[in-house]
């Protein structure tokens, strides 16, 4: 009822798979052509190794970070309606920290890098600087001599850059960092590059496709706004790039109605199936449509994230590489500003108020001894040392304190 866009998307999915509509045929042709373009951009690199044994404790960690969600639209009496899977499907088996505070900078890059380092970061909001202290990726890889393919971050947030995968700390850095993938950006880049290079012979009508892409890129919808696809450098390790691009091509061929988070989920699941990394972080950001002022779309984004984290948990339980040895952590980056704030309420996340800082975290799986609701407030920086301990890393000095409820 209140998820208008989601309902539309589902209806669209049925249409898209049907054969009745002439529009569908042209849409499928275009998407099929787009898939070929991406396939054409693939590099003939070797695939990364599969089924490696996890170093350290053998424990795996999957973290799903969702953008800014207020308590009012999640774990509150009026908000539970938007998170049915978290409440009913995941909640009963989970360790739910009802109050997980973001006491740092409530901007995307700083919030995520604080969660990943266990220290409140205060670097450039737009990812022009790396986190100042080692990320969990680096701690894990350096400490346990894990391979590059064993740590990944997948995101659709426009405010992140590949610097989120490794710090600027001495003795650490990109050498020990994660593979960072921005699938939506990669998809758009592949198509744009193909158009630029004239490799569009597979299209029925090149001019039409180019005009269509121009329209899409011109920002007639929020999905197109803000992506600087022409300057975006592909930082991916060549050894894994082929797999990523193939996955994107598959996604495009699949052709369901999609959002950035759907693509991020699809890519995350592909990475789990192809590489089975021990440490995987995925960042969902559809809720950030709030910055564009649509409350209905923001609510739809919450429902989408709720569904996708549940599907991610289902994948963890179904995938033998993950089943019974994985801790799954779900948390928002922060809340959003309260109604009545000078920052226009839910649009933003800048206010120094509980609505923005007081959020929650849910843990499931092998690291959860006993399902419980923990009312004691924790800080988001407490999560990194807790996860590091689960992975078998020696603890680094940090502002966070390991949580006693999480243990392998």
């Amino acid at each position, binding site marked *: 009822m209140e998820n208008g*866009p989601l309902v539309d998307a589902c209806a669209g999915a049925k249409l898209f798979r049907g054969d009745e509509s002439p529009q*569908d045929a042209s849409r499928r042709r275009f998407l099929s052509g787009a898939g070929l373009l991406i396939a054409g951009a693939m590099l003939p690199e070797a695939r990364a190794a599969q089924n490696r044994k996890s170093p350290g404790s053998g424990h795996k960690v999957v973290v799903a970070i969702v953008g800014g969600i207020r308590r009012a639209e999640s774990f509150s009496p009026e908000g539970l309606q938007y998170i049915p899977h978290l409440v009913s499907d995941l909640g009963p088996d989970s360790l739910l920290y009802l109050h997980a505070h973001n006491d740092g900078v409530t901007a995307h890059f700083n919030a995520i890098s604080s969660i990943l380092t266990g220290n409140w970061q205060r670097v450039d909001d737009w990812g022009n600087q790396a986190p100042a202290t080692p990320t969990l990726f680096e701690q894990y890889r350096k400490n346990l001599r894990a391979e590059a393919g064993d740590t990944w971050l997948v995101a659709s947030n426009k405010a992140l850059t590949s610097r989120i995968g490794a710090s600027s700390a001495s003795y650490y850095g990109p050498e020990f960092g994660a593979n960072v993938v921005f699938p939506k950006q990669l998809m758009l880049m592949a198509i744009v590059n193909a158009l630029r290079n004239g490799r569009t012979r597979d299209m029925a009508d090149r001019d039409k496709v180019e005009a269509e892409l121009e329209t899409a890129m011109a920002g007639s919808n929020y999905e197109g706004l803000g992506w600087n696809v*022409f300057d975006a450098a592909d930082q991916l390790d060549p050894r894994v790039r082929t797999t990523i691009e193939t996955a994107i091509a598959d996604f495009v061929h699949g052709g369901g109605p999609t959002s950035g988070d759907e693509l991020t989920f699809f890519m995350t699941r592909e990475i789990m199936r192809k590489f089975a990394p021990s440490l995987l972080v995925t960042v969902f950001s559809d809720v950030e449509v709030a910055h*564009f002022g649509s409350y*209905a779309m923001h609510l739809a984004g919450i429902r989408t994230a709720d569904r996708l984290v549940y599907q991610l948990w289902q994948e963890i339980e179904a995938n033998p590489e993950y089943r019974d040895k994985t801790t799954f952590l779900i948390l928002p980056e922060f809340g959003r500003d309260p109604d009545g704030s000078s920052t226009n309420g839910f649009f933003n996340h800048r206010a120094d108020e509980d609505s923005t800082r007081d959020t929650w975290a849910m843990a499931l799986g092998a690291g959860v001894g006993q399902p419980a609701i923990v009312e004691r407030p924790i800080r988001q920086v407490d999560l990194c040392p807790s996860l590091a301990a689960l992975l078998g890393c020696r603890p680094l000095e940090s502002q966070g304190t390991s949580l006693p409820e999480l243990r392998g």
Partner: protein
Amino acid sequence: MQPLHLEPEEFAKYPPEARMLIVAHLEAIRQLPVSFVPNLLREAIDYDFKFPAERSAIEKELTVISSLTAAELEDWFRGFAQITLSPALERFDWVNQPARFAEQESAYLWTTHQQDAFRDAATAYGARLLAALPPSEPPVRRLGIAIIGQGVAAYDAPLFRDIRAQGTYFGKLVPENGLQLLLAAVGSRAKAHPVPYGHWYVDGGDAAEHGPLITCVSYKALDGARAALLKNMQAEIRRPGMGPEELRTHLAELMPSDLGMEKAGDPVLDRFQVKLLTEGSGTQIFSTTFAQWTAREALRRAQPLTLLVRFAPRQRQRPMSELLSNSNPTPELDFTGSLIDADMGAFYHWINQQRLPGASQSVFLAWFEGHQQAVVVSPSLPRGVESMSAIDLGKLLDLALS
């Protein structure tokens, strides 16, 4: 440059009224810290294109500053004086580019961890200014009207959830001619209290017929400007080195002529409309966001006595696959989603109205267009109750304003 060395000639590029105003207070401005002055000039440089309420606020602020003794100036601006700026910032042409300076100053304060100190100084200054200049009550009770749900045939979930507790909920209104009755009431108020930019009608779609004394802004009327802006943004995004902050700075400097707006238009309103599109995230693409943001900015800047906002359906969220194929260049409208957006927009409209002087006497009406549901917040009506009176919207408004 330090403010102490400011001379009248340095403001030669300012619009005439802004220049006159600044020069009249130059002696006082010279005594102020460099971390503060560009922020003052940032407001003053647009004086010629501000609404009367804003012009009055700038005039009064400068008058208060000019009235302070040397000791008081030192006391008021001590926090700002303790902020240190880089030599590059001090050399910056902050007289002619105060907005750009403010952006760079903000970034510098962030990197040097002085942001909190600056915020504290600004908060203390604001409090002192407010004490020196208590707001005056409006000449008539302020009236806000939000019309939501255009085109929605039926909606079963509760509406106005966040406002109901503040007023009376009406469930059996007579909806016929509701829009016309409400617009007529706005027109009558404009005639009775002829204040420049005092009575507004904002439409998220195509504006309905309305009285000549009403200031009107509509999403439809800005179609051309929005298209020009999106084209401009896309061109800028493609430029090497362009990032979110650079783009924001670029957008802040756009003028009505850059977006093809009529030269013969109202220069104050044209500037306002450009700001709506360049400063409001989402206003370029979602009509509901445009209507909400316009209401917020009109209340904040023009402080109208009457503000009617009519939300219209926005485009449906387009999935990425559809964006790539663009098989449907005229996207469908999302009626229900727009109603939810507008319901929240109406709540924010009321909140923002309550920030203005005379809040305790102000009246707010939100109506589900074409339907029987409305909520009214008024000192004349009880709070948190429901009424099943079958009255039309004209009479309801009379009741609320009585």
